[in-house]
């Protein structure tokens, strides 16, 4: 990945000197996921001569904050907004209003209610339901056709109010239910923090430790902080000498989670491509502003990272 590589070429192809100003609003700012999305957006910005303002709420539960940010930026004279809504319904009327006022809005990462092409220009994201299903099939594949420990799978969920993780978790559950031999043993919401996920995971995992064996076939955690907390919990069990034969599939990646892949605690990570989302999101806005047609829907897809296909960091 070399964001700068494409820039000179693009500048040559795009001699129009007038800078386009675009604002991008992620759902959260702290996780590395969003850092990657920002990097993609900035790569596109450099490439297409865009002034980019990147502003988001603290975390994905701060819907009201995001509405404030959106409306603020919408009123600040930018030519387009790239948005990842914290909530698919809550942001909808605001986006519609902006669109009606002639401000193009492109949606990325998380869905928004409304008609693509009318209420907003396009949608670039991972299909969360499908991604959840991918996680389930990946886990099923890892467990194999003769599941141990009754095929029981533990699911550590994110918080109650988050739509994308809910879709993911639903996709996972549905696909898992369709897999013979596997069942969900228990699932719990957490408070959205890594420590909260770790505490819940530790305690629930403890329920399945018998004779120094973890009697689970699989573990799934549905986003970065949740997977990180769960990783710590599973790793602690292993370090303690508990025999863990359960397969652990996480979602998203981070330095810690990649480390987990390397040391074998995590078997697979279903990873979105936020960098691509950010890049394509900005690109589609630029295209729209410059009068080129844009795809209504782009699935940036997921990749399944395993130890085998991931280089050590």
């Amino acid at each position: 990945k070399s964001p700068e590589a494409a820039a000179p070429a693009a500048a040559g192809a795009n001699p129009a000197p007038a800078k386009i100003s675009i604002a991008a609003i992620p759902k959260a700012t702290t996780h590395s996921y969003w850092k990657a999305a920002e990097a993609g957006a900035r790569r596109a910005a450099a490439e297409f001569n865009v002034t980019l303002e990147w502003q988001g709420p603290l975390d994905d539960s701060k819907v009201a904050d995001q509405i404030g940010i959106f409306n603020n930026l919408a009123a600040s004279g930018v030519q387009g907004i790239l948005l990842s809504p914290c909530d698919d319904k809550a942001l909808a009327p605001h986006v519609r209003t902006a669109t009606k006022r002639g401000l193009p809005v492109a949606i990325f990462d998380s869905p928004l209610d409304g008609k693509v092409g009318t209420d907003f220009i396009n949608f670039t994201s991972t299909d969360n339901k499908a991604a959840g299903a991918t996680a389930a099939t990946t886990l099923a594949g890892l467990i194999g056709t003769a599941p141990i420990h009754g095929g029981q799978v533990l699911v550590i969920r994110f918080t109650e109010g988050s739509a994308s993780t809910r879709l993911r978790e639903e996709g996972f559950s549905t696909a898992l239910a369709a897999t013979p031999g596997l069942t969900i043993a228990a699932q719990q919401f957490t408070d959205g923090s890594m420590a909260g996920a770790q505490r819940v995971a530790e305690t629930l995992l403890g329920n399945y430790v018998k004779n120094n064996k973890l009697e689970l076939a699989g573990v799934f955690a549905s986003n970065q902080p949740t997977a990180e907390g769960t990783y710590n919990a599973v790793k602690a069990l292993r370090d303690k000498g508990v025999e863990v034969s359960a397969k652990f599939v996480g979602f998203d990646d981070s330095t810690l989670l990649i480390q987990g892949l390397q040391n074998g605690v995590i078997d697979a990570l279903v990873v979105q491509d936020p960098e691509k989302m950010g890049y394509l999101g900005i690109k589609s806005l630029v295209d729209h502003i410059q009068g080129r047609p844009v795809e209504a829907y782009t699935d940036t897809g997921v990749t399944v990272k395993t130890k085998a296909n991931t280089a050590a960091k």
Partner: protein
Amino acid sequence: MSQPPSPAPAPASAASKKSSRVVAMLGRLAALAAVYAFFAFLTPGTKGFMSDANTQLMLQDIAVVAMAAIGMTIVIIAGGIDLSAGSTIALSMITTAYVLNLGPDGAKLVLQHPVLLPIAAIAAAIGVSTLIGFINGALVTWLRIVPFIITLGTMQMARGFAKLVANEQNIYPPAEVQDLWISRVLDPARTVFTWPFLPVAVWLVIGAAILTTLFLRYTRLGRHIFALGSNEKTAVLCGVPVARTKILVYMIGGLFSGLAGVLFFARLGSIGQPTEAIGYELFVIAAAVIGGASLLGGRGTILGTMIGALIITILRNGGVKMGWPQYTQEIVMGAVIIVAVAIDNLRNPRKS
């Protein structure tokens, strides 16, 4: 034995007292103006901090905080505190969404009763919130535990109930709800219901602020609330129904949190979000205290609280508009809370 009074020695005159109160309020207004001018100066032109659109946005933003802050001010004047406000807002929001979502999938009741059901929803939301307030008041009164602890407990409980009612997820009432009047109170696009410049919700807040100001000043209950906060023992001695007043005070607090929850519901585009408004109570309390309310009771004005809420909202809005990172916004917000109260205190050292 009716000697004439000897020459009045007390120099701390009533007139100077009253004027010092006016000065304090002017000081708060000056602080508000300063904060506003700061951002207006730093984000000129296109970014348009002062543009109509942005002003309207800020006013919508303020509506939720200000509505809850009215109730909180009354609780604080009475010498209490309500940490459950944020959770109560969430519970109210969820209740509204829940009622609007009643009925089997195909035939939501709200579609059959587009005017009535929202009224029922609001009534239910406010009822539940007022009930939380009642529980707060009753426990504070009967268990004689400091309100900090009682409302810390009910804060947890109300949050739990919000999640329970919401079935641990967001509640999305049918899309048509977004076109109902209940959703329009905060919708910036629906100018139908807004007199130029001010959204309906802001008018609601202004109305509530005026009513509560009059209530505090001109009703017996209002005077009792000040007496209670100023000196509870004196209130008992003078036959003020202290238990009843206290319970009513927390009920009023719950009621306004409930109203704030309904506004929040509309602000979020008509959805119920059980994990929203976490920690809101702290901003609400900060608004009241910046506005001159004393956490020791007996002191506070609705006008001051409104100024406090405006200062906080302008800070949040202006910080975003300036493109400040979150951390800068948080650092500035923290500093402003302390500085605002400190300046207020300098003028009135007896306060805390």
